[in-house]
């Protein structure tokens, strides 16, 4: 039952992100969606991921988004001519985009419907590994290289963001 509640929150949140005109509402809907996902991680016996999801995504990344949206202060999307027009009169690019999205959804549905062994319970075969200590051990031994590379990635992103957002001095 909890699964459907959290899944519903995640799906409705994501739908609102895509359909809202006001970016502030989009950001808030995405946060609601993240809370749904966090609940699902708890159901999957990964409490650490659930908490990190809230801390990093909802607590840091989304604050950054909200900050930028408020800073730019353009609440409404520029409603172009074609945006208010009848769906069939929209430009080719948008129609192709919609077709592509639909195609992707159909492909995913097709792939899932042809995969065997989806009926078994997710917790049936193995006991859960939810201890933070075990997570840390694997992260800093088996995934050491990836971890270090990620730290460099973050550093580069930070420098890049500072340079990009800096006002050029004339």
């Amino acid at each position, binding site marked *: 039952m909890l699964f459907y509640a959290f899944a519903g929150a*995640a799906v409705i949140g994501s739908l609102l992100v*895509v359909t809202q005109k006001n970016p502030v509402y*989009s950001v808030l809907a995405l946060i609601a*969606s993240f809370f749904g996902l966090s609940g*699902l991680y708890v159901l999957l016996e990964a409490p650490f991921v659930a908490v990190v999801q809230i801390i990093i995504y909802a607590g840091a990344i989304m604050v950054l*988004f909200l900050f930028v949206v408020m800073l*730019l202060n353009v609440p409404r999307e520029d409603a172009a001519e074609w945006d208010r027009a009848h769906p069939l009169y929209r430009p080719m690019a948008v129609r192709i985009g919609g077709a592509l999205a639909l195609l992707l959804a159909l492909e995913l549905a097709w792939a899932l419907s042809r995969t065997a062994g989806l009926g078994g319970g997710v917790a049936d075969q193995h006991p859960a590994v939810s201890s933070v200590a075990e997570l840390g051990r694997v992260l800093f031994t088996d995934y050491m290289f990836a971890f270090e590379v990620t730290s460099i990635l973050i550093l580069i*992103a930070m420098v890049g963001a500072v340079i990009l*957002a800096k006002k050029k001095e004339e």
Partner: protein
Amino acid sequence: MAIGHYLVLSGVLFSIGAAGVFLRRNLITLLLSVEIMLNAVNLAFVAFGRQFGTVDGQIITFFVMTVAAAEAAVGLALVIGLFRHRESLNPEAFTSLKW
């Protein structure tokens, strides 16, 4: 819950994110849609990790989150830079290669 439930949910979220990227005309919403797609993938990783009883799924989730953070930082910096030039968030406003 069956693994199939989680995969279907993950697929639905990914499709919603993809639809957002294809259909919306607002740079901020585009970035948010990308976040939805990343999260859909995270869900599948954690669900598979639970099924196979390993921590690898959770660990890859952390890497995805780190990349998402980097992407958001650089993406938003780009958005701010672009907005300074054109006072618009519509990607169609940025069609010229040079200004």
